[in-house]
């Protein structure tokens, strides 16, 4: 997130040059004009479709290559060490995890033979591996490799490994052991429903070759040559070269255990900005701009659509943008927000349909609930929905004792309804959002002042550490599992947790705990419906929108599957190019 935010400032100028459309103009001249755009907007809103496949002509062509854009460079080829999305996506081209996730968010076996066998107490996952998988140096991939990979992230002997997954994994994983050459047994500390989807099926957990890395001391894993030149791999493509800052070249693994890919080569072209990526899609230098890596910006969606050699798809991702109220009674701003009727009123005062149109260029869904619409736990009929209703907002504030005379700022018992909103400087969408919020709340007699702060130095500490804020705005990215404890559970109100607003609701805590404490899918779904209901009522941190991801594909690329959940490992070998070049 931070990285893309940083890049945005520079790109503004460029887009300004290329597309002097009304929208772009607004986006670039910045915050002052944003509200005017917003007033002029407010048209219909299109719901994005959730996923699909780039149409296949039926005749598969062998050979050829694809060039994919990557604005940021890869950081590290070692799955145990990475956190950034770009590296994770590139790693999933060359190494497989036990599972990945299919278009419905379900487990899709890769190195594993089929779904894990879960014991009746829900604590033990037995995973059978496919037999005969070979690393590309001819060694067999066995349960030892799998166990070794997980040891790097949870076993105390490896704490010197700079894996950011240790805390999360060791909270749930008791042990990972090899029962025999092709069977791995995972024991969890408690029943934890998201375990398989998050810890067995993510690009963060691709399997590493023990015969290459197993002899290294823990601290040496951090600087292993494998991290920059992973020559021993098991995935659909083999590593050829990483010319830093320039390109990553991969070639097909003819012995890939799920069948050789159709493509001969796969190239990531590194660098540029969303504007230059779109230019290169027009010229055919780039075939794929994947959301989060070679992103086409929402403001460029229409321009990209108009190019006849490329298909553009827009679909929801598992993220949302929200603002959060200060609810800690020790902080002065909580005097304003402790009454939930006030919080509700502030949400009613926002015309989010117009916001999605004017600030996200329609490439976002207005949030009717805290669950991303693509999730299986999403309740589209969640109530209340908070349709824009200024009169109702004002009436609710009056009833809550916050009164105003003649359009002045509301007061209650001598206190004025006045606070500061913070978000990260440089993120234009968020900066504009705060201006719109300021205006819309001003209309109901609430005085909110935007303030733009540094992401790393101020915003993150304000959320997870000092908690010195009245209101903050930020985005949050979820995994494929609907568990949202990280944001809402009172446990995470402690230092370092993301419940920065200090929201504490014992009923909700119980719902969240129950929902991860059972493996019964239907029961979980019911519980998450309850969660959405409680949050809609309490509004500790109102969700504004679910922004879309935008995928650009050259029309010669076939069998590319896209969607909220699906990971490329599931279909990569099937992708081909119509001209075979």
């Amino acid at each position, binding site marked *: 997130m*931070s*990285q893309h935010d940083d*890049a945005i400032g*520079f790109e503004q*100028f*460029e887009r300004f*040059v*290329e597309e002097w459309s009304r929208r772009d103009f607004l986006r670039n001249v910045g915050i002052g004009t944003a509200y005017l755009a917003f007033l002029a907007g407010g048209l219909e809103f299109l719901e994005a479709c959730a996923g699909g496949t780039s149409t296949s002509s039926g005749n598969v062509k062998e050979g050829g*290559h694809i*060039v994919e854009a990557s604005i*940021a*460079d890869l*950081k*590290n080829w070692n799955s145990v060490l990475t*956190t950034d999305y770009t590296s994770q996506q590139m790693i999933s081209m060359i190494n497989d995890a036990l599972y990945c996730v299919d278009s419905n968010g379900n487990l899709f076996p890769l190195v594993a033979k089929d779904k894990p066998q879960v014991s009746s107490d829900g604590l033990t996952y037995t995973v059978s591996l496919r037999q005969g998988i070979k690393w590309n140096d001819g060694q067999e991939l066995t349960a030892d490799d799998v166990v070794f990979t997980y040891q790097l992230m949870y076993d105390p002997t490896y704490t010197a490994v700079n894996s*950011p*997954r*240790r*805390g*999360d994994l060791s*909270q749930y994983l008791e042990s990972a052991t090899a029962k025999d050459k092709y069977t791995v047994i995972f024991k969890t500390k408690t029943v934890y429903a998201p375990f398989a989807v*998050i810890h067995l099926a993510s690009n*963060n957990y691709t399997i590493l070759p023990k015969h290459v890395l197993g002899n290294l001391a823990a601290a040496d894993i*951090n*600087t*292993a040559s494998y*991290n920059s030149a992973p020559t021993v791999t098991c995935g659909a493509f083999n590593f050829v070269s990483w*010319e*830093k*800052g*320039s390109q990553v*070249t991969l070639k097909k693994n003819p012995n890939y255990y799920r069948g050789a890919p159709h493509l001969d*080569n796969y*190239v990531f*072209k*590194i*660098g*540029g900005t969303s*504007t*230059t990526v779109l*230019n*290169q899609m*027009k*010229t055919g*230098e780039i075939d794929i701009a994947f959301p989060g890596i070679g992103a086409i910006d929402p403001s460029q969606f229409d321009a990209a659509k108009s190019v006849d050699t490329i298909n553009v798809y827009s679909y929801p991702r598992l993220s949302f943008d929200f603002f959060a109220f200060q609810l800690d009674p020790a902080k002065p701003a909580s005097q304003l927000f402790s009454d939930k009727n006030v919080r509700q009123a502030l949400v009613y005062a926002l015309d989010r349909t117009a916001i999605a149109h004017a600030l996200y260029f329609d490439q976002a869904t207005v949030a009717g609930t805290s669950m991303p619409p693509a999730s299986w736990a999403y309740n589209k009929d969640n109530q209340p929905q908070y349709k824009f209703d200024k009169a109702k907002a004002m009436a609710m504030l009056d009833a809550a004792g916050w009164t105003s005379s003649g359009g002045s700022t509301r007061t209650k018992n001598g206190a004025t309804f006045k606070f500061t909103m913070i978000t990260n400087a440089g993120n234009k969408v968020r900066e504009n959002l705060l201006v719109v919020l300021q205006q819309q709340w001003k209309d109901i007699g609430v005085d909110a002042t935007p303030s733009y702060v*540094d*992401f*790393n*130095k101020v915003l*993150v500490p304000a959320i*997870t550490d000092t908690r010195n804020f009245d209101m903050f705005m*930020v985005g*949050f*990215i979820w*995994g494929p599992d609907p568990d949202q404890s*990280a*944001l809402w559970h009172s446990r995470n109100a402690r*230092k*370092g947790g*993301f419940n920065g607003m200090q929201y504490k609701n014992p009923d909700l805590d119980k719902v969240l705990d129950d929902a991860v404490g059972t493996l019964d899918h239907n029961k979980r779904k019911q519980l998450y419906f309850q969660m959405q209901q409680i949050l809609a009522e309490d509004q500790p941190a109102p969700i504004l929108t679910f922004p879309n991801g935008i995928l650009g594909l050259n029309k010669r690329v076939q069998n590319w599957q896209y969607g909220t959940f699906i990971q490329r490992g599931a279909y990569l070998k099937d992708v081909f190019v119509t001209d075979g070049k």
Partner: protein
Amino acid sequence: MLATIPTLFGVTSISYFLIWVTAGDIVPGVEINPYIKQEDIDRIRHNLGLDQPFWLQYLNWLGLPNLAQQLHLIGGTWPKGILEGDFGRSLVDGSPVIDHIVERLPNTLELTTTAILIGVLLAIPLGVTGALRRGSKIDHALTAMSVAGVAVPSFWLALILVLVFSVQLRAWGLPALPSSGAYSPLVGFDPLDRLSHLVLPALVLSFGYLAIWSRFGRSSMLEVLSQDYVRTARAKGMSERRVVYIHALRNAVIPLVTLIGLELPALVSGGAVVEIVFGWPGIGRFALDRAFGHDYTAVMGIVTFAAILVVLGNLLADILYAILDPRVRYT
């Protein structure tokens, strides 16, 4: 020469302090990610030594404790530092910083050298032309171009050139230039391919130089042309061509050479913006990437490397100046 040591010390300590003050932290806590815990952040910061006080991090980066330990002044084990020629390892990928620099330096040099050459080769004739036809339409046009060259931001010019020479030409079915990168994917070393990638970024980068240098060339030429010895040459009945190109030009070029000499450090640092717009895999872009990525050691490595080159570049310019202009030679 001795002045370079305090200079380098000042540059590195101030840069280190600035990065420390502004950059925030490398550790993945900067991503709001529900699967990363505070204990991971604390543990990784400790492993990377980022939990140490600022002054100790800087001393370690210099390598002073390690030197002291080797002299048996203190005990313990300390990392090697810049004083022993070790640029350290990237906080992001654990690889040696010097490898990154060595890998990208040739790309940057290729781009900036070409740009400076184009600038020099065009600036001198343009400056002479402007001076000889002072007040003419050509002179006015050249002046306008110079003003534009200084005023137009390079990223804007870059995008316009890309739109014309990459996107539009291709749309019309004509041969077009590549818009990004230093070479085509999957093509081995091919001089023509590399050249085609070099054209646009080198032109953009040279435009700024061209604008300034041609102005200097023009005014310097004007000055020289009004000197006595030029009048003498003309009075002797020499052809105008000989007067201008043999007698005047040589002297008119001297201030220009100094100016170009001062641009030598820009060989390394001058192209960052152009590198970004054109996706050119050079040092400037790397520095910016890593600055955004909070990779202290990588940024410090590049800053130090550039500082050394600036010092050397200034020294070289001084020497060149002395060679070309006997009047400033030390006695």
